[in-house]
């Protein structure tokens, strides 16, 4: 392990519990504890508990915080109600994706509204830099990067809410999907949101760094009788892939626009202007660029990022951005960007897996939908 790596407040726990640690976005993170497949299945059938403290958490206070964020995000922010969470993108002037984020409108214990932006760990410093000139235009908005002062824990799975019953107030457990609330966990501040990155129901908690080990242990203890497990980044990736969710650095890049990625729903172009809105207006009508699709492959071998997708004449029509063996489907699955003229559900292709052609066909996303 390199000494420059950042660690989360749960790092010691991961080490003590046999986690295999890898570098991810500058953090020393658990990729798996025992088995990716076992952790994946625990999340699909009971609950998985994830340390996602590496995600960036950016806080905006002040009466014009909504206007600042409305200028930066592709999704409308100024009409957000207290307790609402929205998935949005940050685009550059050309409409390229700088990050995909969750924005929450929260009420502090003192009764003031503020906004919280959860950004990808790998993009945190880029986004903080991107914000600077805009923060200068809104001098009354107070900005704090609260990533290091806090930790973030996801509890995901069909029994996630049930297992949190003894730990959280009832008002929090009845939150609707994509709702969030500032509350307390055993007398300590805690933000709870009904969001996730697994395709399951669940919660994401933000607590102070010093409270994180206790909250983590409490959740695992409460979850033991339900079959809940600590889950590493390996299964987080297979879970999000089955759920058809894009990952920055794979499906999302500065050279990709939201419409190609199938994220047009996260762009509100009507009656508003924001960074990139002019470019996005044009891109929303451009049907010539490669489109994100889901592929199911034959056999057992997974196509990994960068594998070429070929038509039946051997011509290259696209490239895989993420791929893995799907524990739920018991088949290899992938996401790819494909020439729009052939990006049609049911179309068959070959994927070049290190020199071997493997048959694949386009299926609708997501690969997995919870029952």
């Amino acid at each position, binding site marked *: 392990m390199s000494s420059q790596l950042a660690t989360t407040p749960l790092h010691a726990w991961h080490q003590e519990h046999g986690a295999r640690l890898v570098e991810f976005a500058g953090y020393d993170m658990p990729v798996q504890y025992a088995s990716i497949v076992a952790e994946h299945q625990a999340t699909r059938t009971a609950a998985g508990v994830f340390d996602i403290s590496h995600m960036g958490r950016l806080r905006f206070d002040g009466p014009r915080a909504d206007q600042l964020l409305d200028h930066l995000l592709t999704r409308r922010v100024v009409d957000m109600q207290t307790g609402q969470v929205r998935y949005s993108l940050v685009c550059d002037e050309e409409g390229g994706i700088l990050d995909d984020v969750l924005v929450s409108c929260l009420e502090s214990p003192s009764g003031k509204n503020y906004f919280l932006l959860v950004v990808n760990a790998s993009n945190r410093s880029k986004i903080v830099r991107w914000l600077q000139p805009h923060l200068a235009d809104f001098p009354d908005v107070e900005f704090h990067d609260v990533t290091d002062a806090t930790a973030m824990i996801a509890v995901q799975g069909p029994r996630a809410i049930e297992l949190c019953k003894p730990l959280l107030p009832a008002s929090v457990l009845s939150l609707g999907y994509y709702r969030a609330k500032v509350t307390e966990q055993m007398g300590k501040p805690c933000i709870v949101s009904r969001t996730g990155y697994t395709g399951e129901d669940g919660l994401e908690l933000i607590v102070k760094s010093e409270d994180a080990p206790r909250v983590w242990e409490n959740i695992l203890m409460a979850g033991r009788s339900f079959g809940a497990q600590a889950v590493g980044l390996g299964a987080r990736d297979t879970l999000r892939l089955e759920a058809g969710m894009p990952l920055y650095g794979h499906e999302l890049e500065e050279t990709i626009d939201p419409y190609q990625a199938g994220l047009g729903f996260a762009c509100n172009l009507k009656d508003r202007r924001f960074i990139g809105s002019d470019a996005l207006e044009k891109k929303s009508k451009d049907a010539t660029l490669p489109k994100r699709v889901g592929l199911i492959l034959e*056999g057992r071998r997974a196509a990994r990022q960068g594998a070429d997708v070929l038509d039946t004449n051997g011509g290259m029509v696209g490239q895989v951005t993420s791929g*893995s063996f799907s*524990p739920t489907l018991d088949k290899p699955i992938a996401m790819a960007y494909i020439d729009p003229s052939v990006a049609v559900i049911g179309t068959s292709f070959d994927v070049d897996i290190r020199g071997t052609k493997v048959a694949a066909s386009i299926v609708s996303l997501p690969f997995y939908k919870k029952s």
Partner: protein
Amino acid sequence: MSILPEELRYLESHEWVSVSNETPGIATVGISAFAVAELTDLVFMALPKVGQSVSAGHEFGEVESVKAVSPMYSPVSGTVVEIHSELVNNLESLSVDPYDGGWIMKVQMSDPSELARLLDWTSYKHQCDNA
């Protein structure tokens, strides 16, 4: 015949090789328990073909887990005379028995003196313990 890990020779990349007294020119090759535990969640193995030649230290196949693909290197040079084709459909068995039941290929060695260059159990175990 029972294969004991203590009696095998190893490559640093975790492949083992065994040569029995009955068939001294034939090397049986597999991957170690340490490798199987490191890889976890195996989903696929690409095997060479019978008749194919392999050379010491060079890739002869690959093993894929949910997480990643890893090449497998041959400890010896020679010609593949037998492959364990049923293993491909039963990769879970490797986590129980990577030695006897988990052999991957048998090679007619072209240069048995290569065996002397491989790690013995003590050296291999030392490498794994310090990994």
